[in-house]
């Protein structure tokens, strides 16, 4: 039983398979009219988001609520953080509510690990700086597995700004753990030196993109222009944009969102049947339900919810 989900590195292949299997069972719940199971009834989950986020925060909110947990959402703007309260003090204050889990997103690497040190709650890393975004990697695996069945031997290309991408780091670890062959590709200024150590190959042109089964495009942020990483978005698009020409008919397309239309992806591929982007978002809730279940079910719940709690609907 895992205590926290801080990094994909903490997960064995068995852990990943188990979480993906559990997510599939929750998918059935999400198809019902009353999308709720009582698994975490009476437990408190705190969402602590220091970075703006629509997808991830609403996804975690729904996940907690569908498991019947009590949810508290703390966003950095409009909170004491603006008054200069440190992360440690915020965590200790919130710990007074005895949360079962804290979901934390922070602009700084290692924030989730620090929260785990400072509180007794189970901690889920919802993105820590440029370091990791483990639930994103899990929902990517889930989405892909549902589409193709087996992940072993799949060739995945991660294209774009790898240097600044926690999605890329978690993705490289997760895909390779499941037996995929991973290649990262981007402008030389945006691929970190030494990234091969995570378990991937490196390319700086899309010349061999045709060998990929899955093309995973990363968001290209406009801020990278001012940092002199790329001379212009125009040149980036010319060299690295995934469009109808570059994407083969048998290749799948993924993207963590939000998409910069016309930059890393051309409109025609975003809306094509090869794109899994919408399915990725849809799978976010069930995968996060599975993660919360994995960390909290059986950890000593309040009376009424036993270990190995059922996912069958209960009378209202």
């Amino acid at each position: 039983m895992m205590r926290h989900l801080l990094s994909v590195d903490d997960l064995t292949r068995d852990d990943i398979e188990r979480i993906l299997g559990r997510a599939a069972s929750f998918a059935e719940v999400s198809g019902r009219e009353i999308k709720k199971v009582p698994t975490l009834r009476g437990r408190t989950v705190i969402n602590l988001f220091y970075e703006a986020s629509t997808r991830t925060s609403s996804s975690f909110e729904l996940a907690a609520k569908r498991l019947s947990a009590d949810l508290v959402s703390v966003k950095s703007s409009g909170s004491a953080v603006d008054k200069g309260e440190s992360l440690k003090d915020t965590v200790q204050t919130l710990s007074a509510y005895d949360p079962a889990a804290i979901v934390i997103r922070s602009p700084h690497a290692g924030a989730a690990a620090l929260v785990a040190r400072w509180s007794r709650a189970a901690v889920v890393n919802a993105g820590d700086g440029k370091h990791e975004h483990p639930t994103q990697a899990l929902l990517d695996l889930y989405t892909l597995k549902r589409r193709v069945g087996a992940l072993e031997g799949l060739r995945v290309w991660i294209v774009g700004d790898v240097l600044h991408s926690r999605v890329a780091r978690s993705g490289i670890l997760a895909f390779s753990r499941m037996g995929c062959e991973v290649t990262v590709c981007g402008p030389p200024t945006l691929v970190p030196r030494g990234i091969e150590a995570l378990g991937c190959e490196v390319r700086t042109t899309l010349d061999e993109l045709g060998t990929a089964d899955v093309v995973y495009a990363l968001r290209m942020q406009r801020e990278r222009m001012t940092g002199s990483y790329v001379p212009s978005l125009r040149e980036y698009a010319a060299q690295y944009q995934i469009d109808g020409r570059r994407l083969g008919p048998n290749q799948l397309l993924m993207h963590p969102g939000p998409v910069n239309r016309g930059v890393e992806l051309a409109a025609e591929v975003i809306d094509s049947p090869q794109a899994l982007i919408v399915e990725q978002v849809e799978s976010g809730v069930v995968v996060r339900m599975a993660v919360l279940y994995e960390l909290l079910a059986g950890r000593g719940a309040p009376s009424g919810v036993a270990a190995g709690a059922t996912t069958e609907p209960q009378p209202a």
Partner: protein
Amino acid sequence: MNRAPRAAGISRAVELDRAPVRPGTVLIRGARLLDPRAGLDGQRDLLIRDGAIAELGESLAAPEGAETVDAEGLHAFPAFVDPHVHLRTPGREDEEDLDSGTRAAAAGGYCAILAQPNTEPVVDSAPVLRSLRERARAEARIPTGFLAAITVGQRGEQLTEMAEMADAGAAGFTDDGLPVRSAGVMRQALQYQRLAGRLLALHEEDPSLSGDGAMHEGEVSALLGLTGIPSVSESVQVARDCALAAYEGGRIHVQHVSARETVEAIEQAKAAGTQVTCEATPHHLILTDDAVRTLDTNMKMNPPLRAEPDRQALIEALRSGAIDCVATDHAPHAREEKEQPFELAPMGVTGLETAFAALHTELVLPGLVDLGLLVERMTAGGEPFGLPVPRIEPGAPANVCLVDLDAEWEVGEAGYESRSANCAFAGRRLTGRVRMTVAAGAVAYRERTFALGAVA
């Protein structure tokens, strides 16, 4: 005040300050004395009197009123000198003050230290320097020298009144914490050095390469998603300043060398006759960027811990003398500032109290570096600045540290003399402990459990 004899290129004597002490008469019995420079290695009694080493011999008699120390099983070395210490005074006395900082130094076996000027306010004018020296004359437990800034506010634009500050007792000049960005300003500083007569100690970093990096640029930073500081940021700046020093006939001292490229650049410059010296810290000689994997903020400092080949290059350079001395870059930080996400935490670790023990444990015991060589490198820190090297020789000022080379201890278990606890070796078990330090003729430190007795 200690007056040092004039070293080549240093036109005025460097002055150190310390709170008044009465020199003691101390008889150290039965220690194994080791001073490679004096050709000394053997068991002798050592008598200290009137501020100097009075006598070395067998079975010396204790003069009346002498403190006798039973040092059987202990080693006595010339005490150490650290030319790179942050005392945080004025401005951040919560992190360290002159009393706690010099106590920490004495506890590490140091008899003299040089303090860096990146304080609040910066030591960039004679009045600030003088008032600091006055405080040292009231509070410092061991002789302490103060470096002054090269540029006003360390902003890298305008030279400070170096001649006046040299007269007011600046031990040297540095903008440490920051590099001197402009080659033009650096060149002028080297020219002006001919008037000021003091060493320029340089923090070498190219900010356009180091950016907002938090650790060494390498596999570990790629894994952790932290912005990296590439080795070339340091070596490029070092190459620049060695070239400028050669051109202007100046003398520079490269601080906290961390990269093998830097070692190469310095070796080349030395071979070409440039007057350049340099230092390395215990943490760079012992740790690598692997230690940063846990994101422990006690592993965050500038320059950062680099990779194993860099560490090996530093060890080899320490052996060969390409690295002239060990300097701790003791950098205390408040606890709450280090208890933050890694990228936000300030850079710096303490080091005075653990320097010898850590290097003894990790370099001497595994046979990488000779004990005598370590003692040489740890006593040499003042030499580039014109300070005399401590010696165990009759007539020499009494600067001695007594060390139990077999004592095992856990860093931080009994707290620290320093006000700050941000030690890179916190929690480590080390072998080798300083029991007593004599600085400029007076006992500056006795380890708590170390018993002393008077001879009947």
